[in-house]
């Protein structure tokens, strides 16, 4: 029974999160964040361990795999937009991925964080399913890296458009790509509200960053970890 119970609770908490987002239009009200808070509270109240909950919900977690594969679809729909700027975009995304990973690792080290925290911090700019897979491989805490990814996603949705304007980045293509590169799906949803060009480029950057980061992780790890 506990399998059905926790599956139901998880989907219901997610649906409540979607309802809340629709009502409040707040970037803080991400269905995943609302779902995590509600489920965590239910686990604490019922005295259920996380291991039991994770076992009960493997059906949901499993779908991360096919959903990651499906990221090819927005990439396929939007790839024609890159005509004439493939190289600049790939250079920018590579630079961004390297800066993001290296600065994440070095800031943790500088402030006295542990080795496992460095490994958990490294890939948080990538969409959560890929972050989870990469962090497992690196030997970090996969669940924590998923939360880091959610936090930077929400951060992007809340302040990225204003920050980009502050830093004088006004080209809608550059804005979309910058947000998709560091705030993945949650940032992309926000950029779709700004304009469809920004949203499309953000979605494109999210998929490309996942691939670029996967390729760069072994390199960064061999130098820094």
């Amino acid at each position, binding site marked *: 029974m506990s399998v059905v119970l926790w599956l139901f609770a998880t989907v219901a*908490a*997610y649906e409540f999160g979607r309802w809340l987002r629709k009502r409040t239009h707040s970037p803080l009200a991400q269905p*995943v*964040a609302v*779902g995590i808070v509600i*489920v965590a509270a239910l686990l604490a109240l019922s005295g259920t361990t996380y291991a039991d909950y*994770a076992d009960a919900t493997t059906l949901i*977690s499993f*779908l*991360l795999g096919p959903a*990651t594969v*499906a990221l*090819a*679809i*927005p990439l396929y729909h*939007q790839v*024609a*937009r*890159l005509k004439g*700027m493939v190289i*600049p*975009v790939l*250079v*920018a995304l590579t630079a*961004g*991925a390297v*800066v*993001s990973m290296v*600065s*994440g*690792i070095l*800031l943790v080290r*500088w*402030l006295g964080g542990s080795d496992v*925290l460095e490994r958990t*911090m490294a890939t*948080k700019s990538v969409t*959560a*399913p890929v972050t*989870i*897979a990469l962090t497992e*491989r690196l030997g970090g*805490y996969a669940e*924590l890296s998923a*939360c880091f990814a959610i*936090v*930077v996603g929400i*951060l*992007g949705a809340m302040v990225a458009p204003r920050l980009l304007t502050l*830093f004088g*980045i006004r080209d809608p*293509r*550059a804005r979309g*790509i*910058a947000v998709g590169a560091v705030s993945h799906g949650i940032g992309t949803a926000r950029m*779709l509200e700004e304009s*469809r060009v920004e*949203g*499309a480029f953000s979605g494109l950057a999210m998929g490309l960053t996942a*691939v670029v980061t996967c390729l760069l992780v072994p390199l960064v790890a061999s130098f820094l970890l």
Partner: protein
Amino acid sequence: MIVGLLWLLGCQLAGTAIVELTGLPLPGPVVGMLLLFVVLVLRRRDGEDDPVIQVGDYFLSHLQLFFIPAGVGVIAYLAFIRDAALPIVVALLGSWLLGLVTVGWVLGLFLRRVPAVAGTEGAPGEEIE
């Protein structure tokens, strides 16, 4: 529906098999994503009624649901987070901001030479939650 699911699972399976056979340092589903991309480009068939695109778009529209179980795992790390609050907050914010600005500036430098309309035509972006 089922045909679309088969394509997604098939690509994931093929991607995972390739990773296991070759020892590529990539997650299987990411290789699966590249394979599906190649399949989509080769087929050149992209109606709204295409089963892969229908199922895939549906999965993506609820991507956030699928990582709730992983995210709930944060409860096992609350003490860890408290002990390392400073490096976590500074590294998270700092590296995020540096990444954002790097991509924006690098691209801004290049795009001055690309016509301002390039890439801005066409269908709106897909909704990814």
